[in-house]
């Protein structure tokens, strides 16, 4: 069966930054040689790792999507290659499900609509988006000035928290503060 695969791997670039190029081209070559068709080749660039891999704190992420028949067994071939190459810190190959594609299309649509509206997307899109936007704003300000950081965050959290409580409170009645603890038990 024809399937859409995605392979992501982390390349160690501490010694040679060109390694990304050589390895990703090698992987692409391998996929094509075995009958796969490359759809996208996406480089995330250098990133900090959440935990050390082989003593390295940074790595470069490469993401390749390709179409192939499941009979060709390409993931296994790739795994063999990744295992042999000690510049590859981590790798993962998985089948992209239909849901993911639908979600991507959705997100792309959303991003576009936000861009078109440019000034402020004040559409009634629930609290979550607005809170996210607030977070982003807070982060941006952090970069600029760290002194006003605390104020900003407290303000943001207040503005976020209050409307949410107001909307849900009437149902609950009393003891709104201990709720979380109670629920945890």
């Amino acid at each position: 069966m024809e399937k859409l695969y995605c392979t992501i791997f982390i390349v160690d670039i501490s010694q040679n930054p060109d390694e990304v190029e050589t390895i990703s081209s090698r992987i692409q070559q391998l996929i094509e040689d075995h009958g796969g068709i490359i759809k996208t080749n996406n480089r995330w660039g250098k990133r900090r790792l959440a935990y050390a891999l082989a003593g390295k704190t940074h790595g470069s992420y490469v993401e390749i999507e390709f179409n192939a028949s499941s009979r060709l067994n390409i993931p296994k071939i790739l795994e063999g290659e990744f295992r042999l190459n000690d510049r590859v810190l981590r790798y993962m190959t998985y089948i992209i499900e239909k849901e993911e594609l639908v979600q991507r299309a959705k997100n792309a649509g959303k991003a576009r609509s936000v861009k078109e509206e440019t000034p402020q997307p004040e559409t009634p899109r629930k609290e979550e988006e607005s809170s996210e936007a607030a977070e982003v704003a807070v982060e941006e300000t952090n970069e600029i000035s760290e002194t006003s950081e605390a104020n900003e965050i407290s303000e943001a959290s207040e503005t976020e928290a209050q409307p949410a409580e107001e909307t849900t409170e009437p149902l609950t009645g009393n003891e709104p503060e201990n709720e979380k603890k109670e629920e945890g038990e």
Partner: protein
Amino acid sequence: MRGMKMMHRKKRICRFCESGDIFIDFRDEKRLVRFLTEQGKIVPRRTSGNCNQHQRQLAQAIKRARHLALIPFVSDIPR
């Protein structure tokens, strides 16, 4: 008694259902981090309020993200 207790509970809604997501991407770790404890454990469904389907997807996404070193398996708490 039980009924009374239920009355006081706030009804939680699945965040992912609310936003209408079908798939939770492991690539945006900022979103995943919300559903982790300080130590890096996955927050249970009874606390986060996620629905069954989304909690499962979330768990898978978190595990994938952990494997790719996007989010930590464990984060130490300084004492």
